[in-house]
């Protein structure tokens, strides 16, 4: 018995001494926009485990993950691209890749990280291992005129789809040969503000700000060109002012329907993904910014632009209406579901915390202090197309 105990004790000691093995499937990070920090979090215990600084201007920062979920690539507003190791909780590499950036994406094979830039307008491809610049594609839409790039999303075959805000185009750039990319251009409409790739990687949608409608490109048949869906959804009525641009991503697609923010209307538009026809619209309490489906598609969570950014509405996709409306905090900027959706994390910027809610009961589960939190990104994004 004594022998067994001392053996167990020795085992315990060696476990403490050696590096602890762990997976990354339940990890994630919170962007703290004002101070250039990220807080690393564990979604199983719902607690932070590390905080990393020195990431520059993180207003509007976003993150994508390596396919093993170990490394996060964070795109800062100041053009910073920072690679973080979530297991060792440290910066692996950091470069300044442009003057003004808006986000990025990672290729299907995980080898190429692509940043989308406002200044100079265009996209740039980097080696995911070393962050070495592989190639760049300027968003020149007319001689000497460069557009801000929005909506960059990965699709199959190391191709990336995106839109040009000033150029009114959808583009698809193929990085199969990452040092010599090829680009196709499609006229899309007035002022695309963001884009999304459907979860199957087939369709790219660009929301239009300058007109009522959404441009849609079938990436399986790009030769057919981009076409308009939801045309004239505002029916000529005067738009309400939009105090913050909505965001689109593949999270809007649930149960065979896409749930999209209307521009200048306090509505979520519902589109049948088989026919791309409008099948409904749901009244909400403000200008929607994020319209995000819970991973199972049963619920859609909606947050709002200023001055309604304390509110969150939850739509039940079966009932087709808002079933829960509440105010979880001041300045709700972003939300992220646990990988299988049992709870949701919301950034309350002006409360300096992230609040966690159970999505079935809507009960509050806890909160995590964070300085001016904005984006929340969990490693479950690593395995999803268009994230």
């Amino acid at each position: 018995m004594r022998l067994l105990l001392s053996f167990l004790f020795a085992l315990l000691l060696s476990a403490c001494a050696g590096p602890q093995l762990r997976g990354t499937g339940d990890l994630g990070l919170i962007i703290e926009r004002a101070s250039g920090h990220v807080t690393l979090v564990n979604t199983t215990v719902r607690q932070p485990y590390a905080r990393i600084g020195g990431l520059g201007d993180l207003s509007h920062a976003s993150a994508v993950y390596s396919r093993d979920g170990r490394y996060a690539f964070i795109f800062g507003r100041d053009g910073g691209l920072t690679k973080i190791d979530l297991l060792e909780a440290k910066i692996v590499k950091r470069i300044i890749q442009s003057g003004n950036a808006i986000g990025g994406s990672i290729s299907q094979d995980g080898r190429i990280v692509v940043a989308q830039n406002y200044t100079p307008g265009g996209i740039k491809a980097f080696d995911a291992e070393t962050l070495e610049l592989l190639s760049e594609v300027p968003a020149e839409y007319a001689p000497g005129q460069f557009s801000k790039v929005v909506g960059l999303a990965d699709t199959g075959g190391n191709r990336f789809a995106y839109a040009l805000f000033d150029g009114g185009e959808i583009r698809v750039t193929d990085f199969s040969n990452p040092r010599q990319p090829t680009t196709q251009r499609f006229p899309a409409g007035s002022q695309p503000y963001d884009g999304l790739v459907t979860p199957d990687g087939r369709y790219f949608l660009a929301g239009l700000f300058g007109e009522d409608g959404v441009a849609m490109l079938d990436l399986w048949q790009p030769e057919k060109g981009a076409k308009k869906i939801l045309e004239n959804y505002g029916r000529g009525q005067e738009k309400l002012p939009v105090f913050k641009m909505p965001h689109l991503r593949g999270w809007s697609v649930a149960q065979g329907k896409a749930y999209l923010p209307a521009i200048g209307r306090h509505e979520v538009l519902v589109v049948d993904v088989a026919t791309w026809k409008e099948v409904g619209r749901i009244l909400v309490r403000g200008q929607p910014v994020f319209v995000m489906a819970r991973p199972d598609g049963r619920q859609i969570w909606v947050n709002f632009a200023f001055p309604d950014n304390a509110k969150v509405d939850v739509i039940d996709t079966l009932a087709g209406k808002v079933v829960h409306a509440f105010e979880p905090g001041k300045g709700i900027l972003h939300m992220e579901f646990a990988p299988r959706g049992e709870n949701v994390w919301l950034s309350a910027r002006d409360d300096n915390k992230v609040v966690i809610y159970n999505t079935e009961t809507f009960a509050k589960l806890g909160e995590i202090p964070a300085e001016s939190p904005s984006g929340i990104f969990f490693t479950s994004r690593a395995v999803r197309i268009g994230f």
Partner: protein
Amino acid sequence: MSANNLFFSRFFLATAAIGCAGLAFSAEPDPARQKELVHLVRQDCGSCHGMTLKGGLGPALLPETLHDKPAEGLAATIYYGRPGTPMPPWKAFMSEAEAAWIVDKLMTEFPK
């Protein structure tokens, strides 16, 4: 002091205070309101113009990018918005004088 006198003395003091403020600055918002406006500009205008005001989907709002533009036109852009662009009108959330104060700060040095 009677209630009446108290009312008048307060009224006089308040009027005098407004008069003095009017001489020094044209309708400078009080410190609490200034703080709110700075927060609004950095956080909410910042969603398009960048929290550091170096620009995003909207143009940069730094002194060097604004210096050659007339202040009144900039204040009108804030207050009434700019049709044909994503810039919305902010008149529901501030007075014209407050828009002018924001422009003045943007053109010199915007508080943290």
